């Protein structure tokens, strides 16, 4: 019965749109099977969860920062003057059925979204999947990472709570430290010095309209490019630059991928149920004179926070004042993202790859010693900075003084990356030499021309 109706519907559509050819190509589209190719999918599905839970939250969120008297069900804050945004989040969390679950799922999905993107970027980097013809996919992907970081920060900053407030103060300081246009940026994005009544409506609009729309658009382009150019393969039998090996979309790949979506949703629901995240009623509303000790940003901004702590106090002026946070919080992130954007072109220089050949077979990490060593060194550098972002917490936990911890981390930040680079480079060279004596890839056979119907 359902099948009959389905056939009828599809026929009627096809009579009007001539879809059969595309449908056939789509059903037989091949995706390679490898666990590491699922990481990007996790990011995509986390975005879907974010949109679904976010729509629910937006029904209740009040973006006004006007003061209201809290009268909800949390006794400790009753009668206190709080921003309306803070009040509405407490309402969602404590008084709306399933509200707390959806809100915690939203925050956990955001962390998983970022973690999946970062891991996906690492996978693509360490297998050189960014090479021709996929430079554009890479550039769109790095932009997606940038947008995800921005929207994550904006998302946890619109609560009007005491944990995010100082983060916004720091954000203001960073924006102000941008040369020449700093003031314009700060007033455009934050509406002026924090706390500004303009900030929450502006951030809310960015958080739910502009940035998600940009992410959705770029995601569509990203996936469209992956679809059109087809996925890369790891080296293996019958895997050449002219062929692709994997499961068909219908039925096996679709079932696996939907299964992954469901498992991810399950994990997010489990985290939302069991692991409390950002309980702003415990922190209380933002008060510009108060501050929470040991406050940390979400992990994907921890490296910038760490750089701000580890960077030494420079006392010099170049005619104009160079603000303290300019180098660690403006120059460093700009360099990191510039490096990411330009890496496909740097790779061409490093490996002398100026041919017009398309690369559809991945490199294994040991086959590209420079890239692997560089990537590991950069990763370790960012990891040390991330630890630097929690130096006070480490000091409290270990009993050492912050000064000691900071000194150690400064040394590590400078010494570890070159050390890691040298070790990884030599290791890869060694593995490569051993493999080179064993495997000699055969010349690519001329592929059969695909049957075109």
């Amino acid at each position, binding site marked *: 019965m359902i099948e009959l109706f389905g056939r009828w519907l599809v026929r009627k559509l096809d009579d009007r749109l001539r879809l059969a050819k595309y449908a056939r*190509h789509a059903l*037989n589209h091949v995706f390679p099977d490898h666990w590491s190719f699922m990481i990007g999918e996790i990011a995509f599905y986390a975005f879907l969860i974010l949109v679904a839970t976010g729509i629910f939250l937006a029904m209740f969120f009040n973006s006004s920062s006007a003061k209201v008297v809290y009268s909800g069900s949390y006794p400790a804050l009753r009668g206190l003057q709080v921003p309306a945004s803070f009040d509405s989040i407490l309402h969602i969390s404590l008084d709306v059925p*399933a509200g707390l*679950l959806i809100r915690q799922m939203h925050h956990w999905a955001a962390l998983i979204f970022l973690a999946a993107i970062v891991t996906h970027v690492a996978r693509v980097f360490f297998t050189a999947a960014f090479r021709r013809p996929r430079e554009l996919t890479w550039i769109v992907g790095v932009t997606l990472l940038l947008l995800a970081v921005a929207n994550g920060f904006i998302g946890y900053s619109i609560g009007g709570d005491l944990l995010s407030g*100082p983060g916004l*103060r*720091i954000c*203001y*300081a960073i924006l*102000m*430290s941008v040369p*020449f246009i*700093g*003031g*314009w940026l*700060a*007033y*455009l994005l934050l*509406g002026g*010095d*924090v706390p500004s009544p303009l900030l929450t409506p*502006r951030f809310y609009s960015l958080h739910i309209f502009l940035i998600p729309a940009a992410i959705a658009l770029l995601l569509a382009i990203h996936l469209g490019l992956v679809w059109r150019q*087809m996925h890369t393969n790891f080296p293996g039998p*019958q895997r050449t630059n002219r*062929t*692709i*090996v*994997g*499961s*068909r979309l219908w*039925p*096996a790949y679709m*079932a696996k991928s939907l*299964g992954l979506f469901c*498992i991810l*949703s*399950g*994990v997010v*629901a*489990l985290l939302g*149920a*069991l692991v409390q995240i950002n309980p702003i009623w415990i922190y209380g509303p933002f008060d510009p*004179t108060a501050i929470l000790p*040991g406050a940390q940003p979400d992990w994907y901004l921890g490296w910038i926070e760490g750089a*701000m*702590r580890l960077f*030494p*106090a420079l*006392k010099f*002026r170049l005619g*104009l*004042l*160079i*603000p*303290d946070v300019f180098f*660690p919080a403006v120059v460093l992130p700009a360099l990191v993202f510039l490096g990411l954007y330009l890496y496909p072109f740097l790779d061409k220089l490093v490996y002398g790859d100026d041919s017009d050949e398309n690369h*559809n077979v991945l490199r294994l990490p040991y086959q590209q010693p420079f890239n692997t060593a560089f990537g590991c060194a950069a990763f370790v550098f960012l990891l040390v900075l991330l630890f630097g972002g929690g130096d006070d917490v480490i000091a409290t936990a270990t009993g050492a003084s*912050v*000064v000691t911890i900071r000194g150690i981390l400064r040394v590590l930040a400078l010494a570890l990356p070159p050390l890691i680079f040298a070790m990884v480079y030599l290791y890869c060279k060694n593995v490569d030499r051993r493999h080179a004596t064993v495997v000699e890839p055969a010349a690519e056979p001329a592929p059969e021309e*695909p049957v075109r119907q």
Partner: protein
Amino acid sequence: MSEDSERHPQAAHFSYLQVAWDLVKTAVRLAREAFPLFTPPAPAMRETKRLNDIDLQPRRQAAAHQHWGAGLVATGFLLSIAGALGFLIVFWNGASHLLLGLSLAICFGGLGVALVVYARWLMPDMQAVQARERLFSSAAQAELAEANFYQGAEEIPRRGLLGWMAVATVGFIAAIAVSIFRSLGRPPAGALFAPVWQRGEHLVRSDGTAARLDTLERGSAIIVFPPEKIGDERSQTVLLRVDESLVPQDARAGWSPHGYYAYSRVCTHAGCAVGLFEVTTCLLVCPCHQSSFDVLRGANPTGGPAARPLPQLPLYADADGTLRAGGDFTTPPGPGFWSMPPSPPAGGTE
């Protein structure tokens, strides 16, 4: 009646027992199909070549799992349904956060496991080898497209003047789009340098009382504001008192009557509230990034990432012992920006 029973023979013998027995038989049959412990598994379907395929490679031996696969998939689906029912029951009965989340996790998790096991153990698991489409146009195709573009352009009459006018129009509309951003607010040139304190103002606490010479014990600190700006982030000032014998006899000695000091409470590093006063070392410490400032030396930074001193507020006490501002901060308060004026020397004896 007899004709009727011939048409529908079961109607005559209807009994609840019969229906129940039929249901049991159906359930057993479904269970036997789903859980093939009692029946041998059907041979797996073979995948055959389809569009664009060059070859098919077997991926792994899937048959070993087939025996269990169907049962596992069925269990996953059942778990998922149970989770969904659990969610509905909990939701309509008070919506406990924990139970809602757990049932939702079981619902999604069961479905996900069922789908993945279905795909990996039961569906034909062959790797299709396909030729990739070459993603570039032939020279002839590219030239045709280019030729059509220029052909169309040639067909546009009077494109010299009118074309440039079209471009100019778009430019002006773009100017509208850009200038609309002005409504979002421009940095008011004066706000960053606007004075906070005026000479003679009281130092007011958030409860409205003015600080006096007897307000603080030695080694304690409070937050004060100018009278008109109570609670204002940029105006927050820390008023603290040290032992008079500690006050150095430098150019700023007259700013600290009876060991009272006042500094901007906004960190010059990243703008956090400088919330801690370490009495024994006479340091103001910012809890955000652990910058420390020496109270007795014009709040010069002694550690951490801050490079500029906290702006100091000169103080004096009037005849009846009320503390008053002796002027404005030494520099505009808050984190640095490129056109920030230099901090005056602390005048201290280093």
